[in-house]
């Protein structure tokens, strides 16, 4: 199995706060890798650094054996590296279908002159089918004509995933996809992530919910104070003494 993403000793400091102390991990092609850690461990910062939204102070990021450190997000999307956001980030005033369309189309922008020449052109049948299939897979087909802001919270989060999937990524980075979801919504979400993974998309899932990560991921990286604390299967890391301490605190010394 080849390594699709390699994060080599990246560091990031915000003023006095060393948000990412020293982070190093790699993700294999086709894998679902979890990054877990308590609040403030630097999980979102790690995603921001890899996706190009921020530039690391030190260290390199390799994607498909290419050094992509500091590349703009839109360039990385074209390479096949797409992310989602922790808060529901969708185009609130657009329909569900239009949201997905916008995810699919940014990659295929033909340039100003060509777009002016074509005007308000409809989609080709193949593109229509692609969007419809995607909506059906994610259980959003019935909601396609609805305005995104009227969807329940859980569906808005799934829509965020749909927008990212529409860009046909090789690697998707999900920032706390399950946060704030009810149990049955989490189950639905797990199904969506598994199916996308089965279709060949590698996944990097960031969350602080150990149960969610454990059921989904083959391997987990535990992040603590901006550094890797442990890496291994969910079973291994949940038994690791340092991980237990980071999550539950050190037991009190008997008096």
């Amino acid at each position, binding site marked *: 199995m080849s390594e699709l993403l390699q994060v080599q000793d990246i560091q990031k400091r915000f003023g006095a706060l060393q948000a990412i102390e020293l982070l190093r991990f790699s993700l294999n092609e086709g894998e679902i890798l979890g990054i877990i850690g308590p609040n403030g461990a630097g999980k979102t910062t790690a995603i921001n650094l890899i996706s190009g939204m921020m530039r690391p102070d030190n260290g390199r990021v390799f994607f498909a054996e290419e050094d992509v450190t500091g590349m703009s997000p*839109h360039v990385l999307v074209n390479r096949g590296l797409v992310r989602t*956001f922790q808060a529901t980030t969708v185009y609130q005033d*657009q329909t569900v279908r239009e949201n997905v369309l*916008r*995810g699919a*189309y940014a990659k295929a922008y033909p340039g100003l002159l060509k777009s*002016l020449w074509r005007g308000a052109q409809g989609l080709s049948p193949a593109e229509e089918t692609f969007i419809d299939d995607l909506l059906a897979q994610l259980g959003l087909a019935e909601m396609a004509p609805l305005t995104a802001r009227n969807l329940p919270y859980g569906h808005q989060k799934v829509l965020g995933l749909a927008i990212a999937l529409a860009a046909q990524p090789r690697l998707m980075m999900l920032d706390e996809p399950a946060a704030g979801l009810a149990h049955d919504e989490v189950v639905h979400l797990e199904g969506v992530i598994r199916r996308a993974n089965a279709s060949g998309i590698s996944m990097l899932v960031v969350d602080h919910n150990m149960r969610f990560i454990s059921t989904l991921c083959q391997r987990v990286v535990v992040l603590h104070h901006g550094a890797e604390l442990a890496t291994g299967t969910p079973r291994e890391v949940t038994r690791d003494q340092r991980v237990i301490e980071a999550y539950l605190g050190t037991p009190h010394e008997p008096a």
Partner: protein
Amino acid sequence: MQPVSVSMALPGQARQRVLRWVLIGILAAALLIWPLFTHDLFYTHIATLVLLYCIGAASLHLLVRLGQLSLCHAAFMGIGGYTSALLTTRLGWPFLPAFVASAIVPGVVALALGPILLRLRGVYFVMITYSFGELVRLLFNEWQSLTGGADGIFHIPPPHPFFATSREYYYFALVMAALCVGFTGRILSSQTGRFIDSIRESERLAQSSGVPVLRFKVMVFVLSCGLVGMQGSLMAHYIHYLSPGAFGFSESLNFLVFNVIGGMQTLAGPIIGAVFLVSLPEVLRGWVELQRVIYGVILIVVMLYAPGGLVMIGRRTLELLPIGRGGGS
């Protein structure tokens, strides 16, 4: 999830499209024919001004849709106007190349400034554009050897001897305004327009879907400033005179007010805003002392009761009529 019926959407949309083209046809015919029936050149003059301001209002609309409220739009109009006026009066260029230059020079200035200015959002962008607008106005005023200072530039020739009279120039302005507004509409309805809206609605989502946000913003800024530069040129060659006062802060603010009053959601908004607000002072000429008060009251009333702008009032009225309704069997 509430049940929603979608079956009505398509026939309604098709009907609206037909309705829109019928309206555009009637409007075009009316704009072409009416000057032939009046001998009052005053009205043709006002109509010409309205048409020219539609260019600037529509071009600023591109930036409004991008989510960037610029307060230096009149400065770019000035750059275009001065370019064209200086090239024709000082260097004796014919109108056509000077007119082309009146779009290119502001476009190049926008290209140089855009990557810096457009990193700013919200009030910060408003303030920096305000400062830049004032800087340009001072430049027009103080660089006397080039611009003639506060006195301005006189004897700017018409585009062609044929367009020397008011009525002929009206038709010239009509064609130019139709081309510029049509171009703007084409941008907004194309894929480019879809990304312009995406950037306004969620910049980071657009970015993480693969839209090169900053490059896109600069591109739209360049187009917008180039278009308003053309208005500057058309104004100069119509009035045959140019002075810094026409390109100050209040003019920039006017362009923004056209958009706010007309409606910021669709291109029809700034057009309606420009028609309404450019002709209003002339309609109110009988009440000179009350003119500003009435103007202010209208602004407040529209903002209070029609936050979507005059376009929303029109749309709601249309919905009340049987032909405008989407559904109904």
